């Protein structure tokens, strides 16, 4: 193999060179090791090899960068071998990358081996003396290297004597584990250092003295008992007990049922007792009403019996007498936005609370008051938005429809749910985009579904039907913007904008209704036409606050507005003759010197109506008595700046309720002059409803005929 020999020969000097270099390194590390081992117990003493170069700081700081790679840089890459098979020289790719940098044969000997014995003899040591050192090894060649370590060991020995005990303890281990080969001969008497040098320290903490503490619990309670045990007593006891058992047996002829009943009763008792407050609820309510009756006894007496006697002496005037005032803590800062009497319970009415101030919108309330308890409402619903209107269903007095400032409408069921609405529309199903100003229940439809209408500033009149658990909406009319003059060659003025503020349905004709708008117009509409008004009139100069059909006369209605006026109109006087302005002119016009919040026809007469104004006054008119002046003009509000917002006649009692913008509802009694009804002629039975209706109609017609003729006369 001549080819292989070549590289090997090359490698040899290389290896030698490395060994020498390695030794230098070894020297250094060995010294280092020696110090490191004891470095945690002793101060570090640097031992320099004699041949170490003295370098100044700059030289010491100089860095020599060395990179170690796995590849042998000296390995040849172009080894060529002769292939006898192919008879030519061939390039071999496999190169031996192994380079031995340092090799050192072990210098440990087993002490029983021949070599060790020979060595010992050579150094003149006996076997016995060497007993302590289990492994002795030395090579003359290594002595020079270990010189530093020896010195170190000597220093340690001096210290080791101080802690002799420890040294001896650790000797066995140290001897076995010492990485440094010791020179047996030189260090025979020396203590070996213990690398795991440690000390034990003990101390006694202070023991707390013991202290006795005793206490005595109360002895268990005792009782004494005495009796006399005799045969006759025992016998008596038995017979007595037996008799008792017999009796109970007799009772238990139908034991099952009775026991069941008992348990049932017990259960019932426990059930009711579980809800204490509800159990006393009815009783508490009665007591509360009794207390109120006592407190407001004088008012109750007035309500029932007081009649203003001065009425007898004056024909043209009347008075109203304030009765109870209803207020509710939570409604203090809200305005009464609508009032509605309950059709079934004549003493019960509902009031809705909200705010008319655009800047001060907040929550709302629906409150039910009864005349029997003026101090606290019967029930109340709180809502997140101001309630602007409500209406109680005429046939289902527990159903209340309400319209909110946020444009939604809701239906409350006062029996089923005490906490919130049963239905409430959302933006998804037909909610108005502006405040809802009025809602009104309608007769149940053909499928007996309850339904109601709502009107809002967004110009829509919406018909809501409650079908099972949802409210279905249908736009009845859209008070759209359109160019008035262009529309009608026949002169009908189409409204330029539509912001519905009020509406009312005809008492007899189901389809007919009126809509008042913010622009002061009143449209006569039909449910049948969604985009067409039967008639339109420029009723007011400012927003119409209320339109109301007369209870008796089918063509008469009144309107009130922010322009201080209350006007009475006749519908469809001459519907075909549109050029004639009579239908556009009111029959009566009353200027109340302030914004009129609400107007209402009296239920007992066709000619009586009442209005409330923003300066806190109530006006009551009877056209039959005075066509120009009110019979009664009375300040009702408590404070000067309080505005009255709404008024409502009680359907049976001669009282009205008036709401203001501070959350108060005042009930007032009408004096006899304000509620004149036809006197019953002696010997004749009282008029039935038909007769009454006719009478009222003729009464009003008579007045109207006088008014109607007037403009013609003037013309």
């Amino acid at each position, binding site marked *: 193999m001549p080819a292989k020999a070549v590289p090997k020969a090359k490698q040899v000097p290389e290896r030698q060179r490395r060994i020498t270099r390695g030794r230098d390194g070894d020297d250094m590390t060995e010294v280092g090791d020696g110090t490191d081992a004891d470095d945690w117990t002793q101060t570090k003493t640097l031992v320099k090899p004699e041949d170490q170069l003295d370098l100044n700081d700059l030289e010491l700081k100089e860095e020599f960068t060395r990179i170690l790679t796995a590849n042998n840089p000296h390995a040849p890459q172009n080894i060529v071998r002769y292939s006898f098979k192919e008879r030519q020289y061939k390039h071999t790719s496999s190169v031996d990358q192994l380079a031995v940098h340092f090799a050192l044969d072990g210098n440990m000997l087993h002490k029983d081996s021949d070599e060790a014995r020979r060595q010992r003899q050579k150094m003149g040591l006996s076997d016995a003396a060497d007993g302590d050192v289990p492994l002795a090894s030395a090579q003359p060649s290594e002595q020079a290297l270990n010189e530093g370590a020896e010195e170190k060991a000597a220093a340690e020995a001096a210290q080791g004597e101080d802690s002799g005990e420890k040294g001896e303890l650790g000797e066995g281990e140290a001897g076995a584990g010492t990485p440094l080969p010791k020179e047996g001969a030189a260090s025979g008497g020396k203590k070996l250092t213990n690398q795991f040098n440690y000390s034990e320290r003990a101390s006694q903490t202070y023991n707390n003295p013991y202290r006795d503490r005793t206490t005595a619990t109360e002895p*268990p*309670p*005792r*009782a*004494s*008992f*005495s*009796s*006399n*045990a*005799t*045969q006759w*007593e*025992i*016998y008596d*006891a*038995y*017979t007595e*007990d*037996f008799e008792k058992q017999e009796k109970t047996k007799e009772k238990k002829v139908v034991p099952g049922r009775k026991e069941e009943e008992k348990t049932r009763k017990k259960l019932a008792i426990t059930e009711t007792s579980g809800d204490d407050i509800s159990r006393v609820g009815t009783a508490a309510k009665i007591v509360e009403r009794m207390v109120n009756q006592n407190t407001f006894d004088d008012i109750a007496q007035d309500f029932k019996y007081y009649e203003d006697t001065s009425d007898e002496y004056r024909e043209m005037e009347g008075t109203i007498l304030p009765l109870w005032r209803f207020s509710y803590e939570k409604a203090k800062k809200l305005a009464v936005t609508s009032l509605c009497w309950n059709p079934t319970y004549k003493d019960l009415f509902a009031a809705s609370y909200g705010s008319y101030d655009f800047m001060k919108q907040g929550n709302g309330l629906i409150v039910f008051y009864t005349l029997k308890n003026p101090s606290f409402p019967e029930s109340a619903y709180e809502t997140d938005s101001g309630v602007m209107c409500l209406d109680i269903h005429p046939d289902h007095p527990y159903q209340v429809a309400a319209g909110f400032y946020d444009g939604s409408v809701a239906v409350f069921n006062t029996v089923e749910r005490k906490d919130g609405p049963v239905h409430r529309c959302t933006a998804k199903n037909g909610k108005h985009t502006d405040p809802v100003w009025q809602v009104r229940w309608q007769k149940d439809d053909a499928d007996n579904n309850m339904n109601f209408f709502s009107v809002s500033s967004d110009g829509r009149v919406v018909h809501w039907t409650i079908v099972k658990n949802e409210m279905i909406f249908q736009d009845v009319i859209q008070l759209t913007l359109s160019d008035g003059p262009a529309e009608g060659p026949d002169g009908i003025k189409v409204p330029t904008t539509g912001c519905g503020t009020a509406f009312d349905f005809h008492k007899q004709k189901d389809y007919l209704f009126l809509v008042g708008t913010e622009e002061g117009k009143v449209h006569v509409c039909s449910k049948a036409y969604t985009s067409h008004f039967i008639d339109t009139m420029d009723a007011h100069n400012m927003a119409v606050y209320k339109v109301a059909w007369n209870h008796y006369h089918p063509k008469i209605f009144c309107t009130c507005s922010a322009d201080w006026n209350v006007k009475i109109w006749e519908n469809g006087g001459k519907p075909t003759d549109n050029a004639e302005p009579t239908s556009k002119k009111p029959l009566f016009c009353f200027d109340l010197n302030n914004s009129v919040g609400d107007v209402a026809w009296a239920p007992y007469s066709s000619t009586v109506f009442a209005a409330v104004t923003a300066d806190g006054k109530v006006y009551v008119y009877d056209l039959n008595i005075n066509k120009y002046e009110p019979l009664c003009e009375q300040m009702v509000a408590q404070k000067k700046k309080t505005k009255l917002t709404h008024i409502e006649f009680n359907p049976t009692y001669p009282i009205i309720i008036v709401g203001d913008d501070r959350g108060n509802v005042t009930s007032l009694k009408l004096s006899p002059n304000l509620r004149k009804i036809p006197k019953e002629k002696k010997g004749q039975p009282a008029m039935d409803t038909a007769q009454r209706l006719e009478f009222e109609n003729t009464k009003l017609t008579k007045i109207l005929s006088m008014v109607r003729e007037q403009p013609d006369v003037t013309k």
Partner: protein
Amino acid sequence: MEATEEKKEPDTKRVHTYPLIRHSDMNDEMKTEAMELCVTACEKFANNNENAAKMIKDTMDKKFGASWHAVVGEGYGFEITHEVKNLLYMFFGGNVAICVWKCS
């Protein structure tokens, strides 16, 4: 006449042997347990009141803590002091009165 009397006789002289609690202020659980214990003891030692009383006392000591006292007999008067809720005075077998109480 005689026949009717004879018929009445067994009825009136009927012997009741069931355990009858005459007086007790124990809670129900303890009461039933103590009563059952007395019944077993008296049935076991029908002719030895001393043993019956001993059995009752020992068992009660084990079950409800030390210092119980028991008296079993056909005729005796007594006046005792007992810890509240730890007294049972009962009749059994028609002629035996048993009084069990605790007092330390």
